[in-house]
C-alpha cells in the first residue's frame, strides 16, 4: 500500500506536468459537449421541393400552396420543365420534384382521378421515405378537402380521439436524449484513449524496464495507472454534468449518488479496457488504432445514435457485450427518468463485472518477466 502511494504521486505529477494534455483532457470534452448536441438533430424538417406546374389551374395552385403551407416542405423553385427541376436535385438544392401534368384540373373533374409525379432523391433513405410519406399525407388531405368542398353533406365519421403525452420530455426534444449520450461518449474516449496510450508510452520510452526490474507488484502498478485517470474521468464527468445543466438545462431527476456510483464503476471498466489495449500493443500509434477500432464499434452499437432494439438479433447480442451500451442506458434512465437502484441494478452488476474482468485481464496480461 505504501508503494502505491509513491506510484500515484509519480503518475499525478506526470499528468499535471504536461499542460497541453491537461488542457485537452478537460477542455476538449467540455467544448464538444457544448457544441455537438446542438448539431445532432435527427428531425427531418423542411424537405426542399422543386415544383413543375404544367397546368397552372386553380386546383394545381391550391395543391402547391397546400404543400408549401404544410410545414413539412419548403418550395425552393418553380420550374417550367422536369429536366430543369432535376438540376436542383443534382445540385442538392432540392430533395423532391413535384410534377403536375397538363390538364390536371380538367381531367380530375371529368374522371375523378389524376396522377401527379413525385420524384424523390432516394440516396438518403430516411429523408426520402419521410418526404414521400409527408407528401402522400398532404395530398390525401387535399383529396378529402376538395371532396368535402364539392359535396353537400360532410360525412360524420366515427373518430378515435388520440391524445398522447411524452413523459420525462414533453416536447420530445433531442437535447434530453443527446446530451447524456455525448457525455458518456466523451468520458469513454478520454478514459479509453489516455490509458491506452499510457503504458505503451512507458514501453516506448524504455522506462517500463526500470519498473519491471523493481519488486513492484503488478496490481500496484496497474492500480497506480488506474486511479489518476479515474480521478480525471470523474472530474470530466462532473464538468459534463455542469455543462448539461448550465447550457442545456438538464438537471438529473434521479439521485447523484447513484449516478456517481455508476460513473465510478463504468470508468473502471473503460480504463481497464484502455490498460488492456496498452499491455497488448508495442507503440502509441498501434495502441491508439486498436483502441479507436473498438471504441468506434462500441459507440455505433451502444444505442447512442440509433435504438438498440431496432438492430438485428446478432447485433443486439454484441451491443449487450459492451459496457458502453449499459452505461448510456443507465445515464439516460437516471438523469431523465429518475430511475432508482432497484430499477437499474442489473446494469450495475454488468458494469462491475466488466470492470473486474477487464482490469483482471490487464493485470494478468501485464508481464514483468517475458
Amino acid at each position, binding site marked *: 500500500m505504501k508503494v502505491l502511494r509513491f506510484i500515484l504521486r509519480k503518475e499525478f505529477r506526470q499528468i499535471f506536468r504536461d499542460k497541453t494534455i491537461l488542457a485537452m483532457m478537460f477542455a*476538449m470534452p467540455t467544448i464538444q459537449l457544448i457544441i455537438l448536441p446542438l448539431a445532432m438533430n435527427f428531425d427531418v424538417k423542411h424537405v426542399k421541393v422543386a415544383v413543375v406546374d404544367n397546368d397552372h389551374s386553380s386546383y394545381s395552385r391550391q395543391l402547391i400552396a397546400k404543400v408549401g403551407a404544410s410545414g413539412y416542405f419548403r418550395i425552393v423553385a418553380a420550374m417550367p420543365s422536369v429536366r430543369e427541376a432535376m438540376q436542383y436535385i443534382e445540385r442538392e438544392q432540392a430533395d423532391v420534384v413535384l410534377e403536375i401534368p397538363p390538364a390536371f384540373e380538367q381531367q380530375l373533374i371529368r374522371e375523378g382521378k389524376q396522377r401527379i409525379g413525385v420524384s424523390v*432523391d432516394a440516396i438518403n433513405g430516411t429523408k426520402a421515405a419521410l418526404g414521400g410519406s409527408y407528401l402522400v399525407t398532404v395530398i390525401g388531405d387535399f383529396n378529402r378537402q376538395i371532396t368535402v368542398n364539392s359535396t353537400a353533406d360532410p360525412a360524420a365519421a*366515427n373518430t*378515435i380521439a388520440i391524445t398522447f403525452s411524452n413523459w420525462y420530455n414533453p416536447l420530445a426534444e*433531442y437535447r434530453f436524449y443527446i446530451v447524456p449520450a455525448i457525455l458518456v461518449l466523451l468520458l469513454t474516449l478520454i478514459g479509453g484513449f489516455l490509458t491506452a496510450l499510457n503504458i505503451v508510452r512507458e514501453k516506448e520510452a524504455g522506462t517500463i524496464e526500470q519498473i519491471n526490474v523493481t519488486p513492484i507488484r503488478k496490481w500496484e502498478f496497474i492500480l497506480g495507472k488506474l486511479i489518476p485517470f479515474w480521478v480525471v474521468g470523474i472530474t470530466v464527468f462532473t464538468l459534463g454534468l455542469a455543462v448539461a445543466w448550465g447550457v442545456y438545462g438538464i438537471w438529473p431527476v434521479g439521485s447523484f449518488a447513484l449516478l456517481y456510483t455508476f460513473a465510478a464503476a463504468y470508468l473502471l471498466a473503460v480504463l481497464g479496457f484502455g490498460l488492456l489495449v496498452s499491455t497488448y500493443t*508495442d507503440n502509441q500509434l498501434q495502441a491508439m488504432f486498436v483502441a479507436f477500432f473498438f471504441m468506434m464499434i462500441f459507440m455505433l452499437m451502444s444505442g447512442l445514435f440509433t435504438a438498440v432494439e431496432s438492430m438485428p438479433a446478432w447485433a443486439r447480442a454484441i451491443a449487450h457485450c459492451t459496457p458502453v451500451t449499459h452505461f448510456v442506458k443507465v445515464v439516460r434512465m437516471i438523469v431523465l427518468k429518475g430511475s*432508482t437502484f432497484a430499477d437499474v441494478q442489473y446494469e450495475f452488476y454488468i458494469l462491475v463485472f466488466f470492470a473486474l474482468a477487464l482490469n483482471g485481464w490487464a493485470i494478468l496480461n501485464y508481464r514483468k518477466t517475458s
Partner: protein
Amino acid sequence: MKQLLVFIRKEFYHVFRDRRTLLIMFGLPVAQIVLFGFALTSEVKNISLIIIDQARDVNSQELTGKIKSSAYFITDESVTDYNDIEKAFKQGTARCALIIPAGFGNDLLHGGSAPVQILTDGSDPNTAKTVVNYLTSIMTGYQQELSKTPPLRYLIQPELRMLYNEEGNGSLNFIPGVMALVLMIVCTALTSVSVVREKELGTMEILLVSPFRPLLVLVAKAIPYLVLSLANFLLILFLSVFVLDVTVKGSILLLVAESMLFITTCLSFGLMISNTTNSQQTALLLSMMGMMLPTMIFTGFMFPLENMPVPFQVISNIVPARWYFLIIKAVMLKGLGFGYVWKETLVLTGMMLATLGIALKNFKTRLS
C-alpha cells in the same frame, strides 16, 4: 530523385513492419461497412408497448389485434395498473403504453368520438415520435375501415419515383460518409504521428542535417500513407459493390482522382498537426479524439446539415470531409460528371494548399 526513393522506401518499411496497425487500418472500414450496412438502422422496430385495455369489447379487441399483428411492436398486456407503467418506463422494460378506457366501443359507434391515450417514454424522442405516428396510422386505418365512408369523389394519386435508388438500398447514404470518415481519421492520425515520432526518438535531427529539402522530407513521409489510403478507399468501394450491392453510377476515374485529392488534403492536415505538436500523445489525441466527432457530425451523413443552427452550418464548411461527401455522392451515386463538382473540388484544393503551406512553413522554421 534516387534519394527520394530511398527515403520513401524507409517510410514504407515503418508502415509495413507494424502489422497490427495495418490490420486495424483495413479492419476499420470493413467493420464500419458491416455495422452500417447490417446493424444500424434509423428505422424503429421491436418497440415494447404496454396495452391496458379497460374496455375489453369487440372494438377494442379488434384494434389491439391490429396493433399486435404489426411488426413494429412487441406488446405486453400483463400490466393492468396505470401506476405500473411508470415503473416499467423507469426500468426500461417498456417504451410506450396505450390505454383504451372503458366504454371504447360504445363511444366509437354511438358517441362519435372515442378517446384513447398514448404514453411514451420521451427520453428517446425519436422512438417516442415514431410510436405516436405508427399508432395513429393504425388507428386511422381501423377507423376508416369501420366508418365505411363512400370513396372520395376526387382522387389524386401521387406516383412516387425513387431517384438514384429504385431498390431502396438503405446503405447508399452512409457509404460516402464512411469513406470520408475512415480516410480522414486514418490519414490524419498516421501522418501526424510519423513526424512527431521521429522528433520523440531523436531521429528527426538526422533527417534535418541530411541534404534533403524540407518539401522532399514531407513528400517522402506522405507517399506511403497516400498509397495505403488509396488501397483503403478501393477496399471500401469493393465492399460497397460486392457486399452491399451498390452500383457505381459515375466514372471510377473521377472518383479515384477526387479521392486522391481528399487523401492529400487529410495528409496535409496530419502534417500540420505533427509540425505543431511535440509528443505522439498530443498528436494522436488531437487527430483522433479531436477530429472524430466533428468529422462524424459536420459531414452531414448522420445528421442533416440543414437542421443545424446557422453558425454550425458555417463551421461545417471548414470540415474537408463535408466537401468530399458531396463529391462522392454526386459522382458515385448520382453518376454526375466533373461539371457538377468543380466547386467542391476547388474548395478541397484550396484547403489542401493552405494546410500544406502551413505545414511546410512550420517545418522550415524548425529547420532554422
